[in-house]
């Protein structure tokens, strides 16, 4: 479930899921909607696929992505969209940084 939360915490990934509501789309067509580099977009797709929110199939040279969300995941997406929910990376990283500093000192 943490993978799902992680996947839904990013606005770009949420926008990808919104676009896929209109039907399966190729990676190229999806990428056109974002001002993000290709590797970054691939990383977003990988996170979504790992969380089981999308399924992918390779047709020739293009990869087609399709939505594969349960009702609970759909509700979580709606919740995240409504409240603009994002995980504060700095808050997650802070305890690790503190531990590192303690051990290094």
């Amino acid at each position, binding site marked *: 479930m943490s993978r799902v939360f992680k996947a839904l915490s990013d606005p770009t990934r949420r926008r990808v899921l919104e676009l896929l509501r209109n039907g399966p789309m190729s990676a190229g067509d999806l990428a056109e909607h974002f001002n993000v580099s290709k590797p970054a977009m691939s990383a977003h797709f990988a996170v979504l696929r790992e969380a089981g929110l999308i399924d992918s199939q390779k047709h020739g040279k293009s990869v087609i992505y399709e939505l594969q969300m349960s009702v609970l995941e*759909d509700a979580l997406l709606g919740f995240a969209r409504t409240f603009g929910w994002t995980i504060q990376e700095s808050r997650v990283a802070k305890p690790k940084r503190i531990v590192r500093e303690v051990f290094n000192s």
Partner: protein
Amino acid sequence: MITHPISTRPVKALVFGFMGFAAAAATVAAAQKMGAIEPASTKRALGLLVGVMVAITGNFLPKVRPLNAPGVNPGKAAAAAERLAGWTLVLVGIAYVALFVLAPLEEAKRISSILGIAAIVLIAANWAWLVRGMLFGGKPEPDETAAEQRYAAEKRKLVVSLLFAFFYAFATACAAFLFRDRQTINEITWWMSVVFWLIYGAIMVALDAKRSVN
């Protein structure tokens, strides 16, 4: 060639969910026979179990993609129908749980049955024109291997069987909760089982015929 095979995780969750439901229902029935719980509590527990099963099935329904049949069903329409069915079942399941926890037993049985039957009718009406694709599949992808086609056919067969078992159990529970007279319940459930088995047999024959064609 398909690089990421169709996910089986939701199907496995459904299988284990049904097995868990059957085990829990058998435990409740055995507890009543041994006199550990009263008949009224048994009915409440069974209503709760049905509600949980309906909600879990509804939750995973859009994920197992039962109507997904490229070449026959339009992707967007099939996904929308699956999502509507999933949400309907989840809400009905939650209503079942709330009713069997909070409402008087007779009211809970009556209202939950009406809700359940309404949900089944809504889903059946919404799926009517898409079921053709669900049963007979679509055109295989041109670069799909024979093994991948066999895998997709087996998965389709399993999902259809599971959904059939679910709707049969759900419809039987609704009928059992709706009528008070034991003889009426027995007659209705007997006829329902005859009709369901006939339809199930026809579907399995159709699926096997489709596979042999492929």
